[in-house]
C-alpha cells in the first residue's frame, strides 16, 4: 500500500481517487468498500511540508512542516523545505495548502450504526427498564468495518466521540480514531465520558428528570463511600443497579466529564447547578438557548457543543434558537464546540456548520478550533487529540484551501500517523456509475 500512497500524494486529487479505487478493487475484490487502514508503524516517518498550519493551540504558522514519527507528531518546523526531508521519510507537499488537526465528531454513533431505521444495524442503546444505564459501555460493539467511518474520514474527520443513547444516563462514551477496518486499533479509549439527556426524559417532566439525575449522583456517592455495606446488603435500595452507579465514580472524581444534551434555558441552568453541587465536569450538547445564560456558562467553565444551523423554534424547548448562538457564547468567554448532532451519517458536515457559525460572527479560527481542539477538550482528550503539538496523536488534514469553505477538500488525511486512502464505499459506488456514463 505504501507505494500507492506515495504515487497518490505526488499527484492531483482526481488521479488519486480513481487510481486507488482501481488498485484496491483489483487486489481486494471480496472487500470492496473496506480500504485497509491501520495506524502507522513505529518506524514510519512522514513530513507534511510547507503548509499553513493551524497548530490547534492558537498558533497559525504560515509556512510550517509537521514531522510525524509513528503515530505521533514529533515536531513542527518552520523554514523547512522539501530538500530538508530525510531520504528515508515520506513527504507530503502541503505548500499552498492549509493543514489542520483532524475534525473530531462530537456525540456521534459512529461504529454503532449503519442504517438509522434498521434496529438490526444499531447498537447505540441498551434498551432496558432502568433509566440509568451509565454502566453501558458500547465500545466493545464498535464495528471497524462500518461504511460510515471511511465516508467521514475522507472528508477530514479523523476522530470521534461515540456516545450511547437512550435513558437518562445512556452509558459511556468511547473515543475512536477513524481507521476503517482496523479492528484492533480503532478504539483509542473505551470510556472518556458518561452521556445523558435532560428535558422530559423521566416521567414526562423536566423537574422529574433533574430530580432523578440528582438522586442518581447522590446514590453513586453513597455506594462509593459505603461499598462494603452494599456488599453486606445493609444498604437501602439505590437509584440504579450498582454497576451503573459505579460507572459514575470517575465522573464524581472529576476524571471524566458528564455530557448532557439539554436545550432549554431552565435545563441548562439546572445542569450547571448539579455540576456545582457534585463538583463534576459538565459538557452541554445542543445548547439551543445557551446564549441566554452565556455569562453563567462562562463563569462555570462549561463547554457547550452546538449545531449552528439549528435556528428554528422547532419545539418549545428551543424557542430561543438562533444563528448567532456560537458567536455570542464565544464572545462571553464560553468554550464553544461545533458538531452535527443527531446525524451520524453526516458527521462530515461539521466543517460546514463551523462555516455557518463563522458567517454569523464566530471568528474563523475559533470555528476551526470548535470542530477540533474544543471537542477534544470537551471529552478530556486534549492531551492526545485536537492539536498538532509535539507528542500528540498525528491526526491531521491537508486541505486544498479554507477548511470551512465548500469548495475545499482534503488532499491528504493522516490518522495515527498513516495517510489513509481517499476512497470509501461511496466513492466506489460513484466510480461504478461514472465509468458507465462516460462509456455511453
Amino acid at each position, binding site marked *: 500500500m505504501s507505494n500507492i500512497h506515495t504515487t497518490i500524494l505526488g499527484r492531483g*486529487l482526481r488521479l488519486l481517487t480513481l487510481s486507488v479505487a482501481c488498485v484496491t478493487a483489483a487486489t481486494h475484490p471480496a472487500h470492496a468498500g473496506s480500504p485497509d487502514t491501520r495506524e502507522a508503524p513505529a518506524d514510519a516517518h512522514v513530513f507534511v511540508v510547507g503548509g499553513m498550519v493551524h497548530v490547534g493551540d492558537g498558533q497559525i504558522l504560515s509556512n510550517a512542516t509537521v514531522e510525524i514519527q509513528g503515530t505521533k507528531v514529533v515536531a513542527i518546523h518552520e523554514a523547512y523545505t522539501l530538500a530538508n526531508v530525510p531520504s528515508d521519510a515520506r513527504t507530503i507537499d502541503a505548500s499552498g495548502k492549509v493543514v489542520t488537526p483532524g475534525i473530531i465528531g462530537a456525540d456521534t454513533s459512529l461504529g454503532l450504526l449503519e442504517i438509522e431505521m434498521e434496529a438490526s444495524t444499531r447498537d447505540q442503546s441498551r434498551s432496558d427498564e432502568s433509566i440509568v444505564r451509565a454502566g453501558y459501555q458500547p465500545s466493545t460493539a464498535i464495528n471497524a468495518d462500518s461504511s*460510515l467511518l471511511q465516508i467521514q474520514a475522507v472528508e477530514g474527520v479523523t476522530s470521534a466521540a461515540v456516545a450511547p443513547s437512550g435513558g437518562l444516563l445512556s452509558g459511556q462514551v468511547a473515543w475512536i480514531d477513524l481507521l476503517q477496518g482496523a479492528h484492533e486499533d480503532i478504539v483509542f479509549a473505551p470510556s472518556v465520558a458518561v452521556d445523558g439527556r435532560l428535558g422530559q426524559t423521566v416521567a414526562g417532566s423536566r423537574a422529574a428528570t433533574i430530580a432523578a439525575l440528582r438522586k442518581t449522583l447522590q446514590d453513586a456517592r453513597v455506594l462509593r463511600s459505603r461499598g462494603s455495606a452494599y456488599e453486606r446488603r445493609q444498604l437501602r435500595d439505590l437509584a440504579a443497579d450498582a454497576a451503573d452507579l459505579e460507572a459514575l465514580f470517575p465522573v464524581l472524581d472529576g476524571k471524566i466529564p458528564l455530557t448532557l444534551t439539554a436545550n432549554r434555558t431552565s435545563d441548562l441552568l439546572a445542569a450547571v447547578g448539579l455540576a456545582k453541587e457534585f463538583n463534576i465536569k459538565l459538557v452541554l450538547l445542543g445548547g439551543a438557548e445557551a446564549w441566554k445564560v452565556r455569562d453563567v456558562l462562562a463563569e462555570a467553565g462549561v463547554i457547550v457543543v452546538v449545531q449552528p444551523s439549528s435556528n428554528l423554534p422547532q419545539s418549545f424547548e428551543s424557542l430561543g434558537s438562533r444563528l448567532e448562538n456560537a458567536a455570542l457564547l464565544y464572545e462571553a468567554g464560553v468554550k464553544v464546540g461545533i458538531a452535527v448532532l443527531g446525524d451520524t451519517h453526516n458527521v462530515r458536515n461539521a466543517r460546514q456548520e463551523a*462555516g455557518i457559525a463563522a*458567517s454569523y460572527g464566530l471568528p474563523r479560527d475559533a470555528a476551526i478550533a470548535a470542530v477540533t481542539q474544543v471537542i477534544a477538550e470537551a471529552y478530556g482528550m486534549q492531551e492526545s487529540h485536537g492539536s498538532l503539538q509535539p507528542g500528540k496523536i498525528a491526526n491531521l488534514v491537508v486541505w486544498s484551501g479554507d477548511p470551512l469553505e465548500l*469548495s475545499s477538500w482534503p488532499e491528504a488525511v493522516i490518522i495515527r500517523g498513516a495517510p489513509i486512502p481517499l476512497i470509501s464505499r461511496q466513492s466506489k459506488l*460513484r466510480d461504478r456509475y461514472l465509468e458507465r456514463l462516460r462509456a455511453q
Partner: protein
Amino acid sequence: MTTTARIVRTLGLAATVATFACAPTQSSTTAPGELAPAPPRTTSTPLTPPVRAGASVLVQGGRVMTATGVILDEGDVLVVDGIIQEVGENLSAPEGVTIVDARGKTVTPGLIDTHSHMGVYASPGLRAHSDGNEAVAPTTPYARAQDGYWPQDPQIPWAVAGGVTAAQILPGSANLIGGRSTVVKFYPHVRSAAAAHFPGAPDGMKMACGENPKRVYGDKGGPQTRMGNVAGHRQAFEDGKNYLRTLRQYEEEVEKYARGEREEAPEPIERNFGLETIAGVIDGDIFVHNHCYRADEMLIMMSLAKEYGFTIRSFHHAVEAYKIAPELAAAGTAVSIWADWWGFKAEAFDGIRENAALVFLGGARPIIHSDSAIGIQRLNQEAAKAMYAGRRIGVEISEDDALRWITSNAAWALGVEDVAGTLSAGKMGDVVIWNTTPFSVYAKAEQVFIEGTLVYDRSDPARQPSTDFSVGWDLSSTEGGNER
C-alpha cells in the same frame, strides 16, 4: 411595461385554458341551465390570489447570474411593476423606480424549492401542527396541502432570508398517494394559502414508493410490501382512468343533449375529488411528484406512468438517480435530490455526493431540494456541495449550471418555467442580492425581492424574519411592530 402586462395576461389565460382543456364542452356548448356542469379536474377550488401591484426596482452593477447560461460581470436587472423588463448593462431607471446598488454583490433569480413541508409541518413541531400526512388510508388523492398550509409558520420567513421566493408545499410520504401539493410564493402579509398561491402554477400530486407506505400501513391492512405499493398505485390509476372514461361519456351525452340528439338531460355523475386528481394527472394537468429512492422503483414507476399515459414530472429524494441517469433523461423526468443526505434508511443507503453531477452528466435534469426547513435556508450551499463534488471527479459544471439546480430546473418541475426561475425579460421580478457568490459557506442573501417588492433586507431591523408566532417571547425585543 406593455411586455409586462402581456406576460401577466398570457399567464392568466394559459392557466384558464389549462383549467378547462379537459372539458371542451364547457366552452363549446350552450347547455340548458339545469344541466350540471362536468366536474372540473384541475384545481378543485379555484385559488384567487389577491390583486397585488408589483413594485419596480433597478438592481444595478452586480454580478448578474441569470440561470440562462449568461453571467454578466457587471449587470443590471430592471423590474417594472413586478415583472423583469430588461437584464443588461448600463440600464437606466424609469422615473420613480427605486435604484439598488449591487456593485460587488452577486444577483440571482429567487431560489425555488420543489420540496417543502413548511406550513403543513410547522414549527414548533407540535402534534397540533402535524398537517402533512392524511395517514388514514394509503390512497388519499383528495387531500390538499393548501388546506393544511399555515402561512404563519415561523419557518417561512427564514427560507426567504435564504433567498427562496417560491416552493412546492407537499403532503408527506406516508401514503402511496398523499394528495395534492400546492406551489406558493412567499409574499409578505399572507394569511391564507390562496393568497400565497403561485399565480397559474398547476397543482402537483404527491406519490410515494418504498419504505414509508409499507411502514405506515404494514400492520393496518397494507400495503405491507413493495408489491402491495405498486398494486395500490396501479389500482389508483385504473380507477382514475375509469372515472375519466365515465366523465367523457357524460360529456358526450351532454353534447348530444345540447345538439338535440337526446331528449332528457343526462344524469350528472357523482363528483369524486380524489379521482378528479388522478384524472388530472392522466390528462397532464396535474404534475406527479414521486417520493422514490431506489433505481429499480423509479424504473417501475416510470413504466407504470407510461402505461397510463403520463410522465412523472420529478422524482423526489431519488438517492439512486445516478444509477439510471440515461433512463431519466429519456423519460424527461427531473429528480429533486439532496446534496448529501444518506443512510437514514435502507433505501437511502447508496447515496453519494455526486448524485446531481452524474444525473447532469447523463443528460437528465437535477434539482437540489430541501425537504427541510433548515436546509431550505441554504439551498445555495447544498447546490454548491453537489457542484464541487462533481467538479472533483471531472464533471464540468458551471456556476450557472448549478444555479439552475435551484432555480430554473425547479421552476420547470413545478410548471412555472415560463414565468419564473431565471433573470429574463418577461419573468416575475423575483431577485436575490448576495454578499458574494452563492456557492460559498459565507454566502448570505442580503436583499430579496418578490415581484419587485423588497421582502427581506438583512440590514433592516424592520425586515427581519418574523411571524405572529415569533412575537412577544422576548419582551426586550422590538419585534412585533412589523407585521409580515
